């Protein structure tokens, strides 16, 4: 049963990879990479139970943290074109995103 879950997660990772490879816009790729990270977190958790070592669950939680922070960093970078901008702003930010073609 857990093995089937692992296979399903691998298939999902493959589908996300196809979206990263083909993805026409920047946001398709960011979203695909983010959900791929989520699938990998789940896969490491499942892998621990397949191999009979549930210690892997702690590692997968740490991976979830890294995945979240890096996605925020990428999106912030493409909104402000710099990392040295506070996320909360009083004035409306100027739009400098050039990657989204479909907007």
């Amino acid at each position: 049963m857990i093995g089937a879950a692992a296979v399903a997660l691998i298939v999902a990772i493959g589908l996300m990879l196809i979206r990263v490879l083909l993805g026409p816009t920047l946001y398709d790729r960011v979203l695909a990479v983010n959900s791929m990270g989520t699938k990998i977190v789940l896969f490491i958790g499942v892998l621990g139970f397949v191999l009979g070592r549930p210690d892997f669950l702690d590692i997968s939680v740490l991976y979830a943290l890294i995945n979240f922070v890096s996605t925020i960093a990428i999106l912030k970078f493409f909104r402000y074109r710099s990392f040295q901008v506070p996320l909360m702003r009083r004035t409306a930010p100027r739009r400098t995103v050039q990657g989204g073609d479909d907007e």
Partner: protein
Amino acid sequence: MTGYEGADLAIALINVVLLGLLFVIGVAIARMRSLFAIVMLSGVYSLISATWFVALDAVDVAFTEAAVGAGISTALLLGAMLLTSRTAKPEPRAMRIVPLFAVIAVGCMLVYATIDLPAFGDPDSPANTYVGTAYLERTPEDIGVPNIVTAVLASYRGFDTLGETGVVFAAALSVILLLGFGERSLSASLRKKTDKKG
């Protein structure tokens, strides 16, 4: 020990699948021209190789790979992309063939080198015969963490790890001091220059 054999088969299958994914990503990185897609794919590459390290039981290496490869280096590459263009220039065909031969030659050398290595998990290999066995025997009563490598890194060689952390911190600090940050940083001054031009 049938359960152990089943786990072995599962690990072998997982290794093959993960290495196949890594191969696909590597070929895609070599063929793509959009730098943003390449940065994203290299992040995915390190994430999947970190998963592979977890499957091979090298948890500490996997965690370093995930933090440095997927987290920090993606951010650094995006920052570098800000200073250049968004697409790579297409290369002439002759320039593509030379690296192909270099890669094939290095790959053949690496495969040749692995023939001499002891098998994975071999109890008679040099790593498992001298001081390694002492660590394996003493860790459960000395420290009591499930991962031996963590025990060696953080406790038996704690001062060594502390020194390494100090060196990495000093290196990061000097890079930040050299490149600057905020309004006076290198990227901000370059951006001002391009804004004036445009």
